[in-house]
């Protein structure tokens, strides 16, 4: 039991080391003067510093940028992008459209739930591998507990290689980030999954997570870093819908609904 007096101790000025603004004067960002120290900073540098409290090298920031760039798909059929497109079709605001689409990206079959799960698995798997367990056993144990490993296999195009992986691996290699322990482990896991009855390839979620872990992000830091990853693909879906007549993006006629419920009945009976 926690006594309510604990809450009383948190009344009054909010104690923080994250920062705040002094209107008309300055702003503090994690112990630094925002305008004096960050005015020329790369936004990614500031964003990841805000999450982690750590600065990253130019090469690492290039890779972190590229992870976002290469998964920016302006395809309004994708379920999260479709939220942005439909909001545009119904003439909602761009911010509401994109906010809801980002929230929808916290999905179980793609996006943020997969991101955090695969990053967590890779961290646990590395510890197990370093203690002598074979990758084969690590994969087998994980599949016994969780039935699948997010980051391997895909809800669409299951058997094809992920089209983003070769590009991001080449870019990571170019910036000296292509040979980290997590990435090598992710590739070993793919080899096991491809050779076994699962026939699952590494998808972009595992590739990106491995690269970010090698850069030094923790799974929860990685999850927050990935939050805007799909954003650049969403805006075009919204803009496109706004350029069509109102309600003309994915219009559905009544006959689109296939009713499979109980027969008609009367409320009065």
């Amino acid at each position, binding site marked *: 039991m926690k*006594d309510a007096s604990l809450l009383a101790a948190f009344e009054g000025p*909010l104690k*923080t*080391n994250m920062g705040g603004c002094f209107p008309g004067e300055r702003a503090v960002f994690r112990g*630094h003067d925002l305008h004096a120290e960050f005015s020329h900073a790369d936004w990614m540098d500031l964003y990841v510093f805000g999450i982690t409290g750590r600065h990253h090298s130019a090469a690492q920031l290039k890779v972190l940028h590229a992870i976002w760039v290469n998964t920016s798909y302006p395809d309004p059929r994708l379920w999260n992008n479709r939220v942005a497109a439909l909001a545009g079709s119904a003439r909602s605001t761009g911010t509401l459209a994109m906010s809801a689409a980002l929230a929808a990206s916290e999905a179980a079959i793609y996006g943020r*739930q997969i991101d*955090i799960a695969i990053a967590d698995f890779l961290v646990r798997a590395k510890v197990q591998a370093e203690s002598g367990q074979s990758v084969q056993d690590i994969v087998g144990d994980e599949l016994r507990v969780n039935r699948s490993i997010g980051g391997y296999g895909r809800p669409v195009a299951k058997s094809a290689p992920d089209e983003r992986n070769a590009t991001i691996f080449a870019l990571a290699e170019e910036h000296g980030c292509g040979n980290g322990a997590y990435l090598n482990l992710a590739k070993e896991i793919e080899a096991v999954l491809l050779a076994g009855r699962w026939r699952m390839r590494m998808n972009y979620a595992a590739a990106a997570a491995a690269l970010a872990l090698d850069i030094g992000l923790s799974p929860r830091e990685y999850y927050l870093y990935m939050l805007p990853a799909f954003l650049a693909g969403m805006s075009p879906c919204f803009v496109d819908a706004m350029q069509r007549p109102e309600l003309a993006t994915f219009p559905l006629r*009544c006959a689109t609904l296939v009713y499979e419920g109980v027969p008609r009945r009367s409320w009065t009976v």
Partner: protein
Amino acid sequence: MSQTEKPDLIHTRIWSEEPEPDNPFAARTAYCHGYDVYGEILQQATYLEYLFLLFRGERPSSPMLRSLEILAIAIANPGPRDPSVHAAMAASVGGSPAAAALMAALAAGAGVSGGSREVYHAMELWTQCGCMLNAWQSAFAAPPANGKMQVWPEAEHPPGFAAYGGRCAQPVLQTLAALSANLGPGCTQWLADNRVRLETLADHPMAMPGVIAAALTDMGFTPTAGEMLSLMLRLPGAAAHALEQGERGYRRFPFFSLDIGNDPGPVQKAAEAA
């Protein structure tokens, strides 16, 4: 997609429509679980009867309807101190769109501490432990499951119980009494009879999400449906308070003060002083 491919269809057990004769995109009639929505339900049903029908596919019995009314009132407004209502008001005082205020309320009311995810976890516990005190004891003693890391933060108190305080708050007791008097034998009545023993095992007093979870379980809702329903039902209070504070404006809404532990101080002034 080519003209020859099968069109994309939405399969549903909830809803059917007949189009207007001159417009295939406008419904002339709409049926919800077989009932004519605008021809019959509109005239004859109450809102909560319709809500129950939407979720469960059947009309509620009288005790079920009354229980839903009690739940809806209990959840509707946790008051302006609650994080979800506070978030809605914070959105509103700045003049944000109405949807932003409600999205703020949903985000801050969705969590594992007092929010709908706590209702979900508490419903899982009710499903798992039911009315068996020893099952609850085992659940409290069990370490967290070693599964996939979730986007949800780890719970910091047992689901359904209060994070702080030494005894069950009066509104929780009043809600529990009203629901247990209305629902037949089940989780809620058992909770009313065994609350103190359960609180001793949990080392936390019972809280509103626990009572809501027990009632929703008795009413036959799944944890997923209970999570969704408890999110929806909390919006009226958030909306009303957001409207009120939006009218009052940001100048008359708390802004609080900060104590920044690592403030480097004014850079320019420091240089001038040197």
